[in-house]
């Protein structure tokens, strides 16, 4: 009976629902990191004004706040859709885990959104209405509100990757929270928050550097540009180093709780000890590789031991590959991880036991009749979600997206460390180090010989400024790639091991969701085009506009 699994859900509808959520999330994440990053920089600029009382710093702060405001509205607009899409497109999900998942969203609203929306109004309209100290506090509180918002939504997202602090209740047919602190301060959430927020600061810094370099290229607003670059490079350097450190911690968490995601990120078909980190390999971006029959990805070049170290903090650590996970493997602590097929079987046992238990309750069966089914359910509950899989291959996420997104993110992350490091040495006169670095850069022809002994970033060759401007879209690509890894790597699960996407959806038809997808695509794209156009015009006008 259990061999012929069939869910009467339109596959097109699931795909369109996933596409709609992905579209909204990707667009939302174009605006949020700039909000988070720019908030830090404009906060620092206004703090400089508060401390020095120089009109110049007020102009700097107001200029970046103006650009912040244009971007902020789109973040808010796309954010509301995301929250409600959990209900509109993922109805089963909303009930099945709403008892846990709803709380962070509600706290986000109460704690963060009101703070953000109240103080952003004071920041824009309060320059002449509140004291400078109160205004400065409002500017920082706007950024703090956005950051607290990020905390709670990332707590919610981390819980989907690593569900903790909950128990299944067969009578209500849902998971229920039993430990709030475990949910709110899950180590996965802390890693995710640190990595996500810190990497957002890179976008804020890259944005400020790009705009400032455009002014330097045009030889205007040079004072504003230089001072803004100085703030941005410090923020950017700290953030890019921090992103690398927190990224390492995140990778370890993924290795522990989502080994399939890590294997897909690495295109690691067959794992083992002493695993090298793949520097490059040929993975066709448009085709799932034949992981079952290939020993490893073609043209693979790896960094010896690096993957074992990244995943386990031990260069000899064991990292399972995709086939190991599919067929079962022995963990480093000696325990056995079942194969996917065994998990699927146990998941079906759990589902069948739950169905029988519910029938029994409905018919008024005595407790002793129901007890064995409860025991069977509890014994196999860990694999409940696997009962919805029809084939073990469904447990493997799409490897090319994970593999390439991870490489793009890490590669660009390293580039940003280099970029902000060099820029710091160029923008500041750090005794001895700056001179040596500039001399070195002059020797290899990166900067003109005339610039080697002075820290003047206003007279560099034009290509330097263009290079800095190009770094901005690269920062966005790196940030979005990180989310692609996080979300594609979790597939097929909406909640890891608990609920696959096709059991989490609403009962809609594909046409309806396709239509709203197209409407949102047109709307968001048009609004993005308007926003970019307005931002460019505003930058062209400059701070005196």
């Amino acid at each position, binding site marked *: 009976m259990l061999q012929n699994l069939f869910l009467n859900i339109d596959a097109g509808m699931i795909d369109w629902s996933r596409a709609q959520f992905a579209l909204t999330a990707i667009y939302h994440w174009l605006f949020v990191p700039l909000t988070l990053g720019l908030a830090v920089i404009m906060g620092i600029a206004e703090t400089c004004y508060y401390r020095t009382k120089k009109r110049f710093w007020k102009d700097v702060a107001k200029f970046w706040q103006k650009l912040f405001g244009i971007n902020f509205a789109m973040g808010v607009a796309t954010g509301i859709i995301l929250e409600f899409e959990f209900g509109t497109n993922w109805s089963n999900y909303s009930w099945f885990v709403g008892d846990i998942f709803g*709380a962070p969203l509600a706290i986000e609203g109460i704690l963060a959104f009101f703070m*953000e929306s109240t103080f952003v109004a004071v920041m824009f309209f309060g320059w002449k209405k509140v004291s400078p100290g109160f205004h400065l506090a409002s500017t920082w509180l706007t950024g703090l509100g956005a950051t607290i918002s990020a905390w709670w939504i990332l707590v919610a997202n981390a819980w989907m990757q690593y569900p903790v602090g909950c128990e299944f209740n067969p009578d209500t047919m849902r998971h229920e929270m039993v430990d709030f602190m475990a949910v709110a301060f899950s180590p996965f959430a802390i890693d995710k928050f640190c990595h996500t927020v810190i990497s957002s600061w890179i976008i804020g810094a890259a944005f400020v550097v790009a705009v400032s370099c455009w002014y330097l290229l045009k030889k205007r607003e040079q004072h504003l540009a230089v001072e803004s670059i100085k703030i941005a490079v410090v923020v950017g350097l700290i953030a890019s180093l921090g992103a690398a450190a927190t990224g390492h911690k995140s990778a370890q968490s993924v290795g522990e709780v989502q080994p399939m995601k890590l294997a897909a990120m690495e295109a690691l078909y067959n794992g083992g000890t002493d695993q090298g980190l793949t520097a490059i390999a040929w993975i066709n971006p448009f085709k799932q590789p034949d992981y079952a029959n290939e020993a490893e990805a073609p043209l693979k070049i790896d960094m010896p031991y690096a993957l074992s170290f990244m995943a386990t903090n031990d260069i000899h650590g064991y990292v399972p590959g995709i086939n190991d996970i599919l067929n079962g493997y022995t963990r480093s602590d000696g325990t056995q991880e079942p194969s996917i097929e065994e998990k699927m079987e146990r998941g079906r046992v759990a589902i069948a036991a739950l169905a029988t238990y519910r029938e029994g309750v409905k018919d008024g069966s005595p407790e002793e009749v129901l007890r064995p089914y409860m025991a069977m359910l509890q014994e196999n509950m860990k694999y409940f979600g696997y009962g919805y899989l029809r084939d073990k291959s469904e447990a493997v996420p799409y490897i090319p997206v994970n593999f390439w997104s991870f490489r793009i993110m890490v590669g660009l992350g390293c580039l940003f460390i280099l970029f902000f490091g060099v820029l710091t040495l160029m923008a500041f006169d750090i005794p001895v180090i700056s001179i040596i670095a500039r001399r070195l850069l002059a020797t290899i022809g990166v900067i003109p010989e005339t610039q080697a002994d002075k820290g003047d970033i206003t007279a560099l060759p034009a290509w330097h400024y263009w290079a800095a401007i190009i770094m901005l879209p690269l920062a966005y690509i790196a940030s979005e790639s990180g989310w692609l890894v996080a979300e594609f790597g979790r597939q097929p699960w909406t909640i890891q091991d608990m609920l696959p996407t096709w059991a989490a959806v609403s009962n809609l038809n594909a046409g309806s969701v396709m239509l*709203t997808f197209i409407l949102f695509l047109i709307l968001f794209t048009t609004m993005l*085009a308007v926003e970019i156009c307005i931002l460019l015009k505003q930058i062209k006008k400059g701070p005196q506009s």
Partner: protein
Amino acid sequence: MTYEFLQHYWCFIVSLLGAILVFLLFVQGANSVARSLGYTDEGQRLIYNSTGRKWEFTFTTLVTFGGAFFASFPLFYSTSFGGAYWLWMLILFTFVLQAVSYEFQNKIGNFLGPRTFQFFLTLNGILGPLLLGGAVATFFEGSNFIIEKGNLVNAPISSDFQSAVSPVISQWANASHGLDALLNPWVLVLGFAVMFLARTLGILYVMNNVADEDIRSRGSKRLVGSAIPFLILFVAYLVHLLLKDGYAVDPVTAKIYMEPYKYLHNFLDMWYLLIILLIGVVLVLFGIGKTVLSKNYVKGIWPAGIGTVLTVLSLLLCSAWNNTAYYPSTADLQSSLTLQNSCSSEFTLRTMFYVSFLVPFVLAYIIYCWRKIDAKKLTKEELQNDHAY
């Protein structure tokens, strides 16, 4: 603190957020009449800048209302949002348009032109309150859904291809996914009542917030044109509500059944809600009446606003307290949502109960900042010399 208390407490919090949201719809109401109230381009800009300093509150309250509903009554979230898909998508769509319209409309580089975004604000100003009002009406009129929690386990163990069932717990019983609600005339009556209420509050707010004699004098006249249809529609709906059969729950068996005059009984049983309703209505009438009759009185938004919160709060609580199914199903009576069958676990409600202690603190800083920003009324000069949309 019993589970039952927590269910009623969270119903109160969600209803309060809903009531504050209806008050804050003055932003939408004012935008919907900006053209006639502002009259000139400069006058319209004053109105958009006046509501532009408050739109975030409406938006945030809507989001928090959704979040609080999700946390405390997740079955409503999954049933209503997943079922009445098109109704909620339309609401969200108009709010997205509104969110960007303030910032974008008068900026150079806006290649769609200011009129496009002003149209979006008007669209949101009409459709937002109308559809939200319609959604509220479904708490009394019912919606077309069926809930079967067994679907989640019955679907994957079904062996017969033809008889396989959908795994989705909450199913909408027709293909219109929420738009069917708009075919019910009483849903439309309350929807239009909320729309005209939002206009009334919007005019009162602008008269208070904008220091412009032309706008204030036009406001007094426009107010009558919005308040009269509001009052007619509201009274009609209230009478209908008090006379209609309601969806009652047997507290012992949890069975849902139709009870004649249920909502009238609720108000009589919960006399304190009736008093709150009456105070609310009187305050709304006072705010409107005094503004119309007294030439120099511009503070009508405050009594009318407080009255709105009290009235909506009492109506929402009447839909759920006293053993009432707050989200009734017209397709399957026993699928109707009650506080008991749709709420979160006791642990979650208790945890969120402690979180709700933050609400007064949040309200305090909102009021403080609101007063600071509005201490000096908005003028044309301020638009020239300060940050403006």
